[in-house]
């Protein structure tokens, strides 16, 4: 097991990407350990007594020359809301690196990455890190309306981008699984998904039907993030496993979905 750390990182950037998503960039004074797509960090929210536990976030990007890590924080509740109010120059206590990475695709694999909500972050990170030819990477991002989508134009260099919205204001109308890329799932060697449970479950169902390798990243509630509280368990074919240490990335064949 790799060494884990609890460190105070300095907020060097906190910008609103839209009304509910914020990009928070954190800088370490020392060299930052390698963090890979799928892994997460557990962030202390400095606040009142109402927010007692840390909040876990998938890593969105790393920069090892600047020693920074970037997170996309979507406001979901009181913890994430408070976190987005942090100012540049303030410090955050972060526990990292936590959890397991996605299985990297083989060099000639064609992959489909599906992200919804805060699940967009690890999907874009994986697209960037996968090292595949642009034409072999398909990114499909889903949201309620166009306003919930963040600007991801620069990711066009890593793959082909598609969108869905429930109201049809951007890309195809409907849930991600209704998108036309799902008509030909067999053309992909690997499918990766992160987002709301219902979304991942329907993707898993389609991937299973098509017989394509599929990994999903779960977001179960957790207290510690490093395998001691046993609160974030997911029932699997190997029993109840901690999402924080045995996941958050799981192959759909191991889940009891």
């Amino acid at each position, binding site marked *: *097991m*790799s*060494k*884990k*750390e*609890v460190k105070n990182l300095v907020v060097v950037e906190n910008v609103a990407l839209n009304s509910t998503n914020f990009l928070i960039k954190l800088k370490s004074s020392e060299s930052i350990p390698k963090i890979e797509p799928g892994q997460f960090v557990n962030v*202390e929210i400095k606040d009142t*007594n*109402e*927010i*007692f*536990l*840390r909040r876990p976030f998938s890593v969105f990007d790393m920069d090892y020359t600047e020693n920074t890590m970037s997170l996309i924080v979507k406001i979901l509740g009181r913890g994430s809301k408070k976190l987005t109010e942090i100012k540049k120059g303030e410090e955050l*206590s972060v*526990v990292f690196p936590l959890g397991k990475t996605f299985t990297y695709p083989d060099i000639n694999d064609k992959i489909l990455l599906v992200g919804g909500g805060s699940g967009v972050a690890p999907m874009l990170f994986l697209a960037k890190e996968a090292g595949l030819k642009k034409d072999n990477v398909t990114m499909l991002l889903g949201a309620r309306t166009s306003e919930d989508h963040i600007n991801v134009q620069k990711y066009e260099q890593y793959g082909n981008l598609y969108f869905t919205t429930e109201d049809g204001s951007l890309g195809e109308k409907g849930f991600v699984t209704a998108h036309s890329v799902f008509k030909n799932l067999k053309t992909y060697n690997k499918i990766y998904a992160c987002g709301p449970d219902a979304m991942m479950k329907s993707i898993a169902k389609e991937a299973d039907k098509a017989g394509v390798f599929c990994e999903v990243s779960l977001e*179960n*509630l*957790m*207290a*510690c993030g*490093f*395998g*001691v*509280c*046993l*609160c*974030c*368990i*997911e*029932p699997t074919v190997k*029993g*109840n496993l901690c999402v924080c*240490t045995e996941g958050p990335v799981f192959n759909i064949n191991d889940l009891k979905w």
Partner: protein
Amino acid sequence: MVDLAVKINNLEFKNPVLTASGTSGNAEELMDFYDVSKLGGILLKGVTLRNRDGNAYPRMAETASGMLNAVGLQNKGIDYFIANIYPRIKDYKTHLIANVNGSTVEEYIELTEKVDELENISAIELNISCPNVKEGGMSFGISCPSAEAVTREVRRVCNKPLIVKLSPNVTDITEIAKAVEGQGADSVSLVNTFLGMAIDAEKKIPLLSTITGGLSGPAIKPLALRMVWQVYNAVKIPVIGMGGIMNATDAIEFMLAGASAVQVGTAIFKDPFIPVKIIDGIKDYLERHNLESATDLVGSLQL
């Protein structure tokens, strides 16, 4: 140079800071952060005779200054522990203490017999206070006759120091403490979690799959401190205090109230380094107060 060591029964602890069962795994998880030999001791994850899957998700709810849990003693059973976990952790240079759980007196006996044979387990903590299991657990710890019965039977087969972990979910915790002392408990640890509940008002549903669960964290500290004080004054055996300890000052308060050592629990979820910081903080406190030994703190509350 201050002396941090404390003695409980015949065991010498290098410092009075232990980690509570269920909050530090089987010690290996903490090794990812630091060498656990810094710690006075580690109360291992609660073990049962056979595999337990624990309760359904969700098992945790954040509450004001604390959290509720309803894990329900998930573990792979004592035989798996002996074959797979014990060999990996047995040479850690700190006291490893097993936390044993049963649903019947017979299970407690059989389990204790197995743990008793493990050379590098320093002591046994008899858990008669888990609020999250349907059978056994806390039901043994909330009446004097059942607490007496299980302590008496386990004492017969336990050759290691026997710590009995008490439930706060009782009318008078001193009665239970005296009852287990009378049956040969070497020390008592308190408190386990308080039975609590949390509700999502919008959805009109409980936040835990089990509806109720155990409350821990700073929210319970004043209650726990009061109980440690009461028990310290009611029994002659050593008391190990816990309940919402987040920093060295909290730990010192428990020692002033009578705890010979403390267990740090839920704080570890916030920061696994907190037990180490508490050790340093106690050392600073002793120096500041011109005290030679951590033992000088125990029960030294001035009235």
